[in-house]
């Protein structure tokens, strides 16, 4: 079993225009183990993506206080690639496009980065694995042969993130708004992929704005994030409550002083 702990995490970003640091995360606490699915819900601009980027190690997000531990070891000093090799994965809200590098080539590089030089995955084994995962996600060879995310539609990019997830098989996957821009069919496909990963060696942190996704990937725990920290946690029923009452309802109930830019 693997364990990911976020302790009193404070994260700042630099405001490009003003050139000053702005604190986005104001003390996040979270513990999750493999075998569990957690969901984080919260209004736009509250710091959900910031949390995911800080866990993954995006250098633009500065940890000013607190810690992130993987199996008891702090990962704050590790660069992003090392964190990935330790078992973390982030399905990004806005994946990069890279012309000239095919998906296949990229995924092989990613898998082989985790293996010793004299133990690289044989091509046949890789292709077999790829076929298997593509089938679950209704993806074609044609898509995998294309350049990495280049010219992909929003939905195709999301599917491609999940394909990478299934190929790499990390211990922990953070899925940042994997549902945004997906129609119901695509949502079902993506959910099928994530559910296929479920098991003792896999944990996931699902970030979403809407409860809808959680009908397909049922979480064990739901956290509500507002004002840069987690303000409430509960079972799947919490997501439904949010759907009914909106973030404003939860905020008022908890007596929080948080400004919402939107409501569900």
């Amino acid at each position, binding site marked *: 079993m693997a364990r990911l702990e976020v302790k009193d995490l404070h994260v700042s970003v630099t405001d490009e225009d003003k050139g000053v640091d702005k604190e986005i995360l104001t003390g996040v606490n979270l513990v999750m183990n493999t075998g569990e699915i957690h969901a984080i819900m919260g209004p736009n601009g509250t710091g959900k993506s910031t949390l995911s980027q800080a866990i993954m190690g995006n*250098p633009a997000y500065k940890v000013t206080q607190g810690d992130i531990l993987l199996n008891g070891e702090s990962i704050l000093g590790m660069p992003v*690639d090392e964190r990935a090799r330790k078992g973390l994965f982030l399905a990004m809200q806005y994946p*990069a496009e*890279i012309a000239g590098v095919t998906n296949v*080539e*990229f995924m092989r*590089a990613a898998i082989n*980065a985790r293996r010793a030089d004299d133990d690289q995955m044989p091509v046949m084994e890789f292709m077999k694995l790829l076929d298997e995962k593509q089938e679950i996600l209704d993806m074609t060879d044609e898509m995998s042969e294309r350049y990495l995310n280049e010219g992909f539609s929003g939905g195709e990019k999301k599917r491609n993130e999940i394909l990478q997830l299934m190929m*790499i098989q990390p211990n922990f996957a953070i899925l940042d708004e994997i549902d945004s821009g997906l129609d119901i069919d695509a949502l079902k496909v993506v959910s099928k992929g994530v559910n296929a990963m479920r098991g003792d060696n896999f944990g996931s942190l699902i970030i979403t704005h809407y409860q809808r996704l959680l009908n397909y990937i049922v979480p064990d725990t739901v956290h509500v994030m507002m004002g840069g920290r987690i303000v409430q946690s509960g079972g799947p029923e919490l997501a439904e409550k949010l759907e009914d009452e909106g973030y404003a309802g939860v905020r008022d109930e908890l007596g929080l002083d948080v400004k919402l830019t939107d409501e569900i």
Partner: protein
Amino acid sequence: METKVEPEFQSALTTYTQDHAEPAWSLELRQKMLAQYPTLPLPRYEKIDYQKWDLLNATKPVTTTSNADLTDDLKIDFAASKNLLVEVGKSVMAAQLDPALAAQGVIFTDIFTAMRDYPELVEKYYMKTAVKADNNRLTAFHAAFMNGGAFLYVPKNVAIKDPIQAYYIQDSTRKQDFVPHVLVIAEEGSELTYHENLSTSGTESNLANIVVEVIAKDNAHVHFSAVDQLSGKTTTYLNRHAILATDATVDWAVGFMNDGNVVGDFSTDLRGKGSHTEVKVVAITTGKQVQGIDTKVTNYGQHTIGHILQHGVILEDSTLTFNGVGHIVKGARGSDAQQESRVLMLSTTARGDADPILLIDENDVTAGHAASVGRVDEGQMYYLMSRGISKKVAERLVIRGFLGSVITEIPSKSVRERLTATIERKLENGQKSESDS
């Protein structure tokens, strides 16, 4: 640059010419250019400072042959290609042409054989239209000392499906200039794909002066690709020039993968109405080398299209300059000149220039340019690394993608793979001297 003509060169050249049984016009041209070259001006290229390089200190022509095992490093698959020419220095190691093409009148042979067997045909074009012998000091030097190369002739309406492949291997196991000349004639309505590889065997310091002429007649279609991999001990002047007649197309894809100093003059004349060129250039510079590439398209004819795409990567203390010259002359109505030049710098001591020069002398045209000198995209790096890929491998992947425009244009799979491996090797070597941060 020092320029000298000694009387002994005259007699050495005469002997050399006789040794190959060259036609009288060739000897005459050589002697004339030998006398003339020291007085001609050096060509000038914006921001490319090569004038002090050792490009004119000629060695006396040698008639001895080169060693055949100098081809071993390249692992050429002689059986894989029906149309293949392999030369080491001036020695021909392999020359094969599909008999069916020969029967249609296609000629593909080394330049000396061509001069002997088709003297009039070669004389008609050789250094007369695309690259004129007396154009400048370096072209005249070339005309005087030419010592290898090929002649490719495709008759009217003949379409060649299989790529024509040529290997020109500089013999640097000894002191000897490398001066190959390639002449490609595509007659009306013909079609061909030609790929050439330039490389060096041996560790001597030598100069190279290479001229390639492509003449595309009405409605001819030429696909030209090249991988240049001359050694770090070779100082090179490389001139590739095409002239296009009505509705002709010439597509270029050239990889400057040399290790030494190179000045490249790369020019396409869109003479005929409706002619079209796509010029793709990629380059990697490493160590302390300088590569200056002057890529030029001139729209003379109406409704001509000239597009230039140049992508380069600079490592360590090296310098890479891309000039992109788009010139639309008066009267070339309805023409289009576009260019994009991008340079990535991987070290703080690298120097790079992407220099667009648009000269537009006609109103009714479209023209545009984009140029940038920058660093590897951080967002792309983060994305790749977030999948566990190390910084160096991620960097190489992004760069390989960046250079992909030319790789995909190479007709032969084995050459594509070799080019990819070369890029990989150059980047790995270059990265070794970069910091690990």
